[in-house]
């Protein structure tokens, strides 16, 4: 039995607190949303800061982000008691709710990603529409949006428009990721959520998970195609990942230290929470194994490991740990907050559901869906340079 808060002799939870109302779907919703962030980081590096070194992964980052974006709202839909009414959030948004304009911000960003991708690939779509037959031709034709000729003069305009969209995408992505944090940070009834730092923590952790997933996918794809990776570029990306995580982790620890040092009512429930039900997943999981270890690993890779295979290997291990760290963080925030009963005198038990509507199986399927979508898309459009020989004849 863990120590109980507020002088409680027995674990007392309010009768309506028996259930953890937001479960795994609400854990993977901000997680999938966060993975989109890789696109805006690479956009910022390539389109805004003009770092040409990241050009080879610019399209990859966009397509990968689009795949995650397609499924980011799915967990919410699965979670809703009345999913058939989800459209109401677009038509009758209640503007005092932190959730009400999520639909617009999220869909807007997805449309922006789609426009960018269309501008980049429309030349390819046109070529395919003109050089295929049957159903294939019709699908490619649809993707051209009816524009079946490509003038060489349009290339500079397309590039300019892409650059503008990428520029708009950066503040928009910051808004999207910060907003997800605000959905939690603004709930005053749950001490573990209610902090003004939450939007920045969610934004920083989205950047971390977004870069980490790009590195891991990049490695896997290059390994599968037996193409040697660009070590120097990966090292630069790893440096940004390391810095972003130091910032993110610093904020997470700052929040914890702040609550501890203030020693107000919140600490009376948060201390027994992190030393009790969240001890393994938060203290050992999120902070020690998945934060301290990758900080040292990536630090070593960035500062001392050169530009070779060993650096690449360490960066991938670090990226995997950080990707897990963010997943643990999402779990510890979303589930952890609900483990404190609003009675402030007891903790709720979280039961892992496997085959239920919001269980592990659904979560796994939803998490796998973006990767499958990416695979399917990558069969049809050239994403990396090495794809071009196979797929890009335009």
């Amino acid at each position, binding site marked *: 039995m863990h120590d109980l808060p507020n002088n409680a002799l*027995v674990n007392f939870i309010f009768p309506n607190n028996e*259930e953890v*109302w937001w479960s795994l779907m609400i854990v993977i919703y901000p997680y999938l949303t966060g993975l989109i962030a890789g696109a805006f980081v690479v956009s910022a590096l390539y389109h805004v800061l003009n770092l040409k070194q990241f050009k080879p992964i610019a399209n990859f980052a966009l397509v990968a982000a689009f795949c995650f974006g397609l499924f980011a709202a799915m967990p919410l839909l699965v979670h*809703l008691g009345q999913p058939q009414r989800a459209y109401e959030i677009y038509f009758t948004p209640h503007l005092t709710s932190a959730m009400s304009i999520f639909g617009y911000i999220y869909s807007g960003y997805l449309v922006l990603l789609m426009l960018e991708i269309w501008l980049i690939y429309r030349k390819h779509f046109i070529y395919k529409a003109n050089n295929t037959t049957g159903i294939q031709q019709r699908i490619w034709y649809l993707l051209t949006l009816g524009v079946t000729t490509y003038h060489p003069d349009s290339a500079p305009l397309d590039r300019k428009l892409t650059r503008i969209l990428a520029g708009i995408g950066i503040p928009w992505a910051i808004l999207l990721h910060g907003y997800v944090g605000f959905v939690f940070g603004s*709930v005053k009834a*749950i001490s573990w959520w209610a902090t003004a730092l939450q939007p920045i923590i969610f934004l920083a952790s989205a950047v971390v998970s977004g870069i980490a997933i790009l590195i891991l996918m990049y490695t896997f794809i290059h390994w599968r195609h037996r193409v040697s990776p660009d070590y120097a570029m990966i090292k630069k990306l790893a440096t940004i990942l390391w810095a972003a995580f130091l910032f993110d982790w610093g904020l997470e620890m700052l929040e914890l230290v702040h609550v501890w040092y203030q020693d107000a009512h919140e600490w009376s429930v948060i201390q027994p929470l992190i030393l009790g039900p969240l001890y393994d997943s938060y203290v050992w999981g999120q902070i020690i194994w998945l934060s301290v270890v990758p900080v040292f690993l990536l630090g070593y890779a960035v500062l001392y490991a050169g530009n070779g295979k060993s650096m690449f290997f360490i960066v991938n291990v670090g990226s995997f740990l950080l990707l897990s760290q963010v997943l643990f963080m999402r779990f510890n925030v979303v589930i952890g907050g609900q483990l404190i009963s*609003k009675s402030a*005198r007891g903790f709720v038990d979280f039961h892992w559901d496997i085959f239920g509507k919001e269980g592990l199986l659904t979560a796994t399927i939803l998490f796998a869906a973006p990767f499958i979508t990416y695979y399917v898309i990558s069969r049809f459009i050239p994403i990396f340079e090495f794809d071009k020989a196979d797929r890009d004849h335009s």
Partner: protein
Amino acid sequence: MKKINSNSSILDSKSRRVFLKQIVSGGATALMIYTSGVRGGHETSRIWKQRSTEHHWAYIIDVGKCIGWGGCVRACQKENNVPEGNFRTWVERYVVTEDGVYVDSPKGGAQGFEPVNAGLKEKAKRAYFVPKMCNHCENPPCVQVCPVGATYKSPEGFVMVDHDYCLGCAYCVQACPYAARFINHEINKSDKCTWCHHRVKQGKLPACVEACPTRARKFGDLKDPESEVSQILQEGVWTVLQPAMHTGPSCFYIGLPKEVI
């Protein structure tokens, strides 16, 4: 021409100063009126806030009178078809000892309470029952967070859920500091106490109030100065749950011990 101009500029700067002073003092007065009437710490003015409606309902719970019989919980379940395991109202039992506070609410107190064990009984300094329910707050966080406005505050004081709009997202359940809300799995929508709105509209009392044998629960109209709730609140010896949350509950407690959260 030059002189006139300079004079007018002096006049201008004077009148500007007067004008600015007036703005500052007027603004400060307005701010004082606003904060005294609306913000927490001045709950009385909030309760007596004039409403343009015929009624302004309020609920009073007299902790000293509750015997933990559970008839209120049963009456509520029957009246409102509350699903098993969820509660629109419940009763908590507190046993305060030197070692700490024992609290329980088996089945929401619907079947009453078994006696506590002998050890606890021996150590008990005091014990009491506390009925709980939706507080029908003046500043309800559940209403604030509902993404589609399915939950709303009626002008007469009821906080309601429109089941034709509710998405079942449970954001309101998270936002309620009192755990008064739940997702009703029979309809997959948010659910909570309505103060038996359907009964009140017919001139009846909420089922829990009617079922209470000791009159620990009271419900009435603050617009009627002669009503029992008006009289009791006028005395000013009441409190609300978790006042620091600044939700402005419309359920008022008399004799609420300090251990209660």
